[in-house]
């Protein structure tokens, strides 16, 4: 581009519009993080569904791969930040949204694992009593252990928040539709048993992150090739 070329007002406005458009195309996400989390959540959901449907156990809790995925995510984030040549206006806000989402997911895991035990202890310490549940078919009586119903619904509603925020802020339709679908899956999960909830979680992983991630990746690679 030359510097001294005299532009008329029409050409100036055209240059401004074209350059703003070029800048927009310059900060495509690499899509790697979305692909990673989409693959991990959908794989864990599908394996859980297959385990429950065919009544077998693979030997370990498949959802542990979600925890393991944090390690590559740390390296991906460091590498992406190093290679970043431009920072968009909404970048900090979106980064904060995803970080708060990550914290919230772990807070929810903590809640689901801790609250039943604490509730039982509170019931016991209140008047030193236990609650029992009786199976009228077998006439068997057992201590009632508090349980959080439809846990997957809570995860689904959390999954939709950062995806919808990113979809709306970046006007990225695959994430917007993925987030909306996730909300629909949340409603469905309120009426389904855990077996089908696992399938819903897998679908959320695929439509929320895996497909948008693959689209981002292809756009990023196209932009790099130009």
């Amino acid at each position, binding site marked *: 581009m*030359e510097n001294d070329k005299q532009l008329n007002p029409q050409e100036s*406005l055209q240059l401004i519009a074209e350059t703003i458009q070029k800048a927009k195309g310059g900060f495509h996400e690499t899509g790697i993080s979305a692909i990673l989390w989409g693959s991990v959540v959908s794989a864990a959901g599908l394996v859980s569904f297959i385990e429950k449907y065919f009544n077998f156990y693979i030997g370990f809790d498949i959802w542990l791969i979600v925890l393991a995925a944090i390690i590559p995510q740390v390296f991906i984030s460091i590498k992406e930040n*190093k290679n970043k040549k431009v*920072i968009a206006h909404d970048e900090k806000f979106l980064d904060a949204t995803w970080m708060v989402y990550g914290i919230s997911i772990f807070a929810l895991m903590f809640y689901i694992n801790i609250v039943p035990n604490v509730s039982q202890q509170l019931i016991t310490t209140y008047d030193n009593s236990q609650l029992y549940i009786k199976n009228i078919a077998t006439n068997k009586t057992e201590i009632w252990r508090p349980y959080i119903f439809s846990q997957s619904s809570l995860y689904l509603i959390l999954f939709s928040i950062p995806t919808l925020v990113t979809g709306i802020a970046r006007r990225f339709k695959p994430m917007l539709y993925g987030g909306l679908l996730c909300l629909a899956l949340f409603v469905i999960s309120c009426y389904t048993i855990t077996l089908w909830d696992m399938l819903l979680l897998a679908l959320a992983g695929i439509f929320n992150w895996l497909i948008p991630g693959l689209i981002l990746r292809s756009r990023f690679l196209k932009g790099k090739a130009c």
Partner: protein
Amino acid sequence: MFAELDPILHSQLRLAVMSLLIGVKEAEFTFIKEKTNSTAGNLSVQIQKLKDAGYIDVVKEFKDNYPNTTCKITTKGIHAFETYVQALQQYLKVQNP
């Protein structure tokens, strides 16, 4: 009466740099060079002119042992850019009433 077009912005490369920076929080020199399709020497000179006018902030630092220049539009730069665009629109309104 037409507003006078800002001579700092009324140049192809400087206007392109400002148009790029208005859409982002900050951008590295290499990104601007790539998007404006300019030479490093010419771009350095124009960036210096924009910096001298107070339209952009330039931060020079080392990244992975290599010098790295980052540019960011200032409030004065945003105001100048908006005034420039309004003036252009005024000209165009008269040409195409």
